[in-house]
């Protein structure tokens, strides 16, 4: 369908207004919300993620595509059915306590939003209590913790133990950052580990059984 393809391409090219206009047009033409979401928005961001992972495109392109995708998402969201809302898992993301590196976290947040998830970004230097409290407050499905400094990795273990203490064991924890590994993830009892932004999306989909 012409409109779906136009929106898809506009996202790849990071054209915010064209995406908004296209989605508007699609809705008016009676195209299924689910089709616009999956065939245009999500699959476009899949390609963006792939290209970024391959080093073919870079942060500015990812940011523009994500902005364009969000513009489309904002128009679609009021039309979501309950089923679509459920698939849109809610993720609390932040950089670990004591750590102020945020580029990686921002990228993961963008890619997760690109994949259709709802992301609540707490920012940097976030205490375990803050992660857990916000997860409870927002009824989040996942807590995502990022760290670049080796010493801040320990606070990730605290996020896991604290959320279990607070009886939020259904909330999954995913961790990411250059110094991390699957071994560390297992050691602290986290549910998953993303090696880069692309992988984070794949792992979150796994955690949500998607």
């Amino acid at each position, binding site marked *: 369908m012409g409109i779906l393809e136009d929106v898809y391409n506009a996202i790849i090219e990071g054209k915010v207004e064209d995406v908004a206009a296209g989605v508007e047009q699609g809705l008016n033409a009676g195209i299924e919300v689910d089709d616009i979401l999956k065939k245009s928005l999500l699959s476009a961001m899949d390609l963006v993620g792939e290209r970024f992972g391959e*080093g*073919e495109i870079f*942060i500015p392109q990812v940011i523009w595509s994500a902005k364009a995708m969000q513009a489309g998402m904002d128009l679609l969201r009021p039309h979501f059915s309950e089923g679509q809302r459920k698939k849109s898992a809610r993720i609390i993301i932040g950089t670990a306590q004591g750590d102020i590196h945020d580029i990686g976290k921002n990228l993961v947040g963008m890619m997760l939003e690109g994949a259709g998830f709802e992301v609540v970004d707490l920012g940097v230097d976030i205490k375990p209590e803050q992660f857990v409290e916000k997860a409870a407050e927002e009824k989040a499905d996942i807590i995502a913790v990022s760290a670049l400094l080796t010493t801040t990795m320990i606070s990730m273990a605290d996020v896991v133990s604290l959320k279990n203490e607070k009886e939020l064991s259904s909330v999954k924890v995913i961790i990411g950052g250059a*110094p991390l*590994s699957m071994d*560390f993830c297992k050691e602290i009892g986290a549910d998953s580990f993303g090696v880069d932004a692309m992988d984070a999306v794949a792992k979150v989909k796994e955690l949500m059984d998607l």
Partner: protein
Amino acid sequence: MISPLLEKLKEKVILFDGAMGTMLMKAGQDPIKTPILLNLDEPDLVADIHKQYYVAGADVVISNTFGGSPLKLAADGLEGKLVELNREAVRLTRRSCPDGKFVAGDIGPSGKMLKPLGDVAPEEMQESFFAQAGVLIEAGVDLITIETMYSLDEALAAVQGVRKAGDILLLASMTYSKTKNGFFTVMGENIPRCVSVLEEAGADMMGANCTLNSTDTIGLTKELRAATGRPILIQPNAGKPVTSKGLTYYEQTPAEFAKDAKKIQKAGADMIGGCCGTTPEFIQAVKEEIAKV
């Protein structure tokens, strides 16, 4: 008048120091505290780390002012301490610096993105670096090193800011990732492009630091060498940190790093130092390896 450092460059490979952040963590410092505050709170510790690097063979030691620009300080509410923090940092490095060696004033990224991706205007960015550079120059550094820049636009603002503050010897070092298509900043800029823009803006020396380990950096050095006739500084990481059963160690040994440093020298580096995970031991090993014929 030619800077004594540039004179020395003609005689030998200039050695820079290794990491400060990881050394502070090794000394048991609270990682939650931003490193620049330690210039006020633990001056002896900072001065001692500087001294260890000079003793190990570094010709140039970089001041503990990486996060010292007003924009970066503001993230911790410390912009009011701009002068105090930067000035103290340089004083501590100078205090440890023997005659004939050098003190570099460090300028790191602002932590912000430029419009339209982020919310900082280019003039604001430049002004922030100009303010920090002014303090460093006044405090008496021999040169300024702009480091770990991942955005060419930001690096340009930094070079422009320093140049506005003075004629001081200026090195601009970018950080590059290795992709299947070559070396690029995360923003997508390649080596020739970065070098061309920064040279034009007034940087005297070029560099690359962080992100990559010493082995991957050998190829990068060749590219950087081919892209510029200016002196180049290469500062790789000591591999990746690994944490297992509560212990953290960097996967690369000083000996491995030093062997790569020799190759980096052969690839055309005029100046060599170390970034994340390196220690005085690393610099000592590099010095010894380079001295071998």
